């Protein structure tokens, strides 16, 4: 996805953004997801496989994942012109998970480009697995094949227990993702990335949700900026909020 510092511009007349000059990065929530997988591997052994779907540019994120410590990766390659909807993405990811095998599946709680927060649960349904979303704390019992997770609610949190395998979607606070070190970046270059053309999966890509148009937020009218004595400006601001904006 585009770096969060990106100023979004819309391709005129089309329901998508202008992509020239954009720096592409791993979704921030996916860093928490991957980090949790790596920590479990360090504790209990096993293998961490990164699965990503998208055009050639997602190789960047895949390399970052491998440099953080993932063992190998599967890249489901799509063509750059089409943005797939969450349903389609989830079917493809679920197929790859099925092919690779899993004890746990981690995704981000949402992608901070389309902000759908759907792909994790949709993968879970496609594979017939339970899910725990927006997880900020996770305990895994590999012998008992169960997990216990804390998930964030509005002004509260809840503890959820589920059998493995389970899909976990990661929220900030779950852990502190590591930075790839230089030696690990070098090592990552030799790790396996399996390329799977999306077309080979036999998934129909007619979307269930179609983006018809994309617009930018309306510009705000020029601000009223007050300067000078703190008490006077505070009084004037309170007056404006009361008499002009009618909000207090």
């Amino acid at each position, binding site marked *: 996805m585009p770096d*969060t510092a990106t*100023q*979004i511009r819309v391709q005129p007349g089309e329901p998508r953004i202008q992509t020239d000059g954009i720096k592409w990065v791993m979704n921030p*929530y996916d860093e928490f997801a991957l980090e949790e997988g790596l920590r479990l591997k360090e504790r209990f052994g096993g293998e961490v496989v990164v699965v990503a779907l998208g055009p050639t540019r997602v190789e960047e994120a895949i390399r970052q994942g491998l440099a953080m410590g993932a063992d190998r990766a599967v890249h489901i390659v799509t063509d750059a012109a089409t943005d797939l909807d*969450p349903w389609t993405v989830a079917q493809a990811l679920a197929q790859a998970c099925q092919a690779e095998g899993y004890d746990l599946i981690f995704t981000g709680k949402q992608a*901070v*480009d389309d*902000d*759908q*927060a*759907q792909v*994790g*649960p949709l993968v879970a*349904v*496609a594979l017939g697995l*339970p*899910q*725990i*979303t*927006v997880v*900020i704390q996770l305990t895994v019992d590999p012998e008992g094949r169960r997990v*216990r997770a804390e998930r*964030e*609610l*509005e*002004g*509260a*949190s*809840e*503890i*959820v*227990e*589920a059998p493995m395998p*389970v899909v976990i979607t990661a929220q900030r*606070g779950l852990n502190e993702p590591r930075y790839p070190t230089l030696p690990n970046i070098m090592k990552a270059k030799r790790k396996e990335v399996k390329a799977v053309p999306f077309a080979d999966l036999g998934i129909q890509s007619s*979307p*269930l*949700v*179609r983006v*018809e*148009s994309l*617009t*930018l*937020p309306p510009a*705000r009218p020029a*601000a009223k*900026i*007050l*300067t000078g004595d*703190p*008490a006077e*400006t*505070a009084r004037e*601001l*309170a007056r*404006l*909020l*009361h008499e002009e*904006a009618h909000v*207090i």
Partner: protein
Amino acid sequence: MARGILVATNQNGGRVRRVAYEMVSLAQTLAPGAVTALTFGAEAEKTAPELGRFGADQVVALNAPPYQQYSSDGFALAVQAVVERLDPEAVFFPATAWGKDLAPRVAGLLKAGLASDCIEVHRREDGRLGAVRPVYAGKAFATVAIESPRALFSIRPNIQAVTTHDRAGALLDVNLDVDASQFQAVVVDVKAQASDKPELTEADIIVSGGRGIKAAENFRVLEDLADALGAALGSSRPVADEGWVPHSYHIGQTGKVVSPTVYFAVGISGAIQHLAGISGSKYIVAINNDPDAPIFKAANYGIVGDLFQVVPALAAEIRRIKQEA
């Protein structure tokens, strides 16, 4: 043909969040056909009169023991069963932790298109329902069409006025063929955080602090303003990262996306990731001692000044106005 709208909502001891009333009000303005509210848990039936008042023609209250502890997979099966029984044109969920957990699960079971976190749902010219939803955390807005026969939406709190429709809110008994012993992910405990403040994503007014507040203990200055306004408290990311406030305060592209009537950005510079999360605010008020801070370009009102002088004066002024009113 599928008709009416099903509104799924959680409740606690017979009380729902305001977003439930917002959703039934919205559904009522859109639906030919009945608006049915679906609630879960002990005392769910008690929600019926109020849900009716704001737009629910009927209420399904799943108050049996299996529905007294939330389970994403279990509740999704129940929603699926209710949908198959009532055949609604659309299903609404609140875009809250509860609804955002459940809605995609139901979408997966029904193979129905879901538009998440919508700020608008409308009737399109072709007669179907469409929606507007923020993308890139509010840096842009997407108008979306749902291509499946049934349309699912999660609705952001605070985007729809609660209106009185005086509907029956009649309790509707449905016998569901759902096997509770198959529920897999089950809530075993809830940790409430003691707070008398409104929740950020539902708050009408938010007072948010940035690195300009300099230290955890200085947050008191903002708490006082929030008290005067009846506002919720928020923060920029670094303030949460420093541990001055809980992570749940963090607003922006990688935190909470908020849409209050008024957003007070105090000692916040206005980085693009922060602005993304507040673009849905009706009014933005900036208080910052740097006249060139980018936040002033995003604001409706601003004061250039030292927050430690301005904020207490503002809190006093607001208390005075409220007293006179």
